[in-house]
């Protein structure tokens, strides 16, 4: 899967879960700061990513991801091209 497609899907899921418009979201945005996700919301977001990409993620690795951009890179590293 190309990075652009992954980015689009990450931003779509993020916008839905965090109730933002996709246009507001930048790759440098931190989930817990600029996007305002609390602890539970961050976990729900990762759960939503699992569903979106049909993956079972390693909890510790997934929860280390801090920004939208690093999330895109994270999934780019997991999903076949």
């Amino acid at each position, binding site marked *: 899967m190309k990075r652009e497609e992954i980015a689009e899907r990450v931003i779509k899921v993020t916008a839905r879960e965090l109730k933002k418009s996709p246009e507001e979201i930048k790759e440098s945005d931190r989930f817990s700061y600029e996007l305002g996700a609390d*602890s539970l919301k961050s976990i729900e977001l*990762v*759960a939503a990513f699992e569903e979106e990409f049909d993956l079972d*993620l390693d*909890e510790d690795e997934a*929860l280390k991801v801090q920004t939208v951009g690093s999330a895109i890179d994270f999934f780019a590293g997991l999903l076949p091209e």
Partner: protein
Amino acid sequence: MKEYPLQDIAEPNLLKDIFPYSLPPLIKFEAPIKEMIDGKEIVFDPTEVLNRDIHITDTTFRDGQQARPPYEKEQMVKIYEMMSRLGGPNGIIRQTEFFLYTQNDRDTLDACRNLGLRYPEITGWIRASIADFRFVKEMQLKETGMLTSCSDYHIFHKQKQTRQQAMDQYIEVVETALENGIRPRCHLEDVTRADMDGFVIPFVQRLERLTENQPDHLKVKIRLCDTMGYGISYPNVALPRSIPKLIYRMKEDCGVSADRLEWHGHNDFHKVHINGSTAWIYGIDALNATLFGFGERTGNPPMESAVIEYVSLKGDLNGVDLSVITELAQYYEKEIGANIPTNYPFVGKDFNTTRAGIHAGGLRRDEEIYNIFDTTALLNRPPKVAITDKSGTDGVAMWVNNFLGLTGKDQLTVMKVAKIQRWVMDQYEKEGRLTSISDKEMEEQVAKHFPDLYAKVKK
């Protein structure tokens, strides 16, 4: 000041020589203890406790029973049998004591004796009166405790005696015991509020003279009774409250050996456990305790704490079976109807339960982070989590995985249980709940969100 540079090591230092986890944490002494007594520096060697025969004696059926409704005979027999298993074949719970006044008392003693168990040895407890001593003789006991109150509060105000009259009365019973081949154990009631030089030391010296030519199994024993919980463990405290000095004076001024000294405490100032273990360290072999600390007023040294302290000091189980502590607690709550506070160490329902998400998170990664020792293996009590609005998704994940029996890589992640955590938070944030989430409610959530896994558990 010495400079300490950071040691940025590759592997964690878990201090396993002190915290093996397979045992309660160990107590390692590094140097002798020095105290000033009567102007002289006295050295105590705490490492001697490794080689001395420290042990526990029980007063559950005496002091413990004074403080609560009477046990039924069958209950006492069952408790006696469990205490024997707890203390193990080496008799770490060495003796117990019984009232002898009623037929029920005596029948119960016989029922315990008829089990034929070596430990705990059965002894009596009487007031220091000839009339009471008759019961000891009739029951053919080998040893009896006798209440030899030693503070002027007791001698003058309770017993309405002079010191001479009190001593003479006590000595009469001791002599009678010796004449009958029965070992006397003198309980110095209220010793931490007594005049040491004016009564206690003269009395104990007289006892020693009486028994100095007796064979070892008849030499008088001395129980130091901190009746009101006034005893202090700190160094360099004045008598009569200083536990170290009390013990020192018994040994040095009276010649009582460690194997004939016993400590009996009360918890009126929350010091009961530490005072008891202090007595061990400063040279007393026997620590008198009751199950779960039930005893007069605020209670006595809890036996389960004493057993665990024993293991920590000795670095070895030496045959004790700590899981019987859990068995006894369950028996007390279910069969006897006793109320053990939920946060009571080692036995309370929640003694190793966390409600904090950050603690649950730690437990999920490594149980040793937030569990005091391997309570699963030693006490048959795995660490648990209870769910509130503070438990976080880590708490919920731990609860769900424990319930489903999932371990290692099979465990559900926090992402998988996020829906249950959302339900929990909604209870508090939307519904305004103020109570904990019950296990039943959590089970319902598991059934709803993980029906297949739930069905496997319920099969």
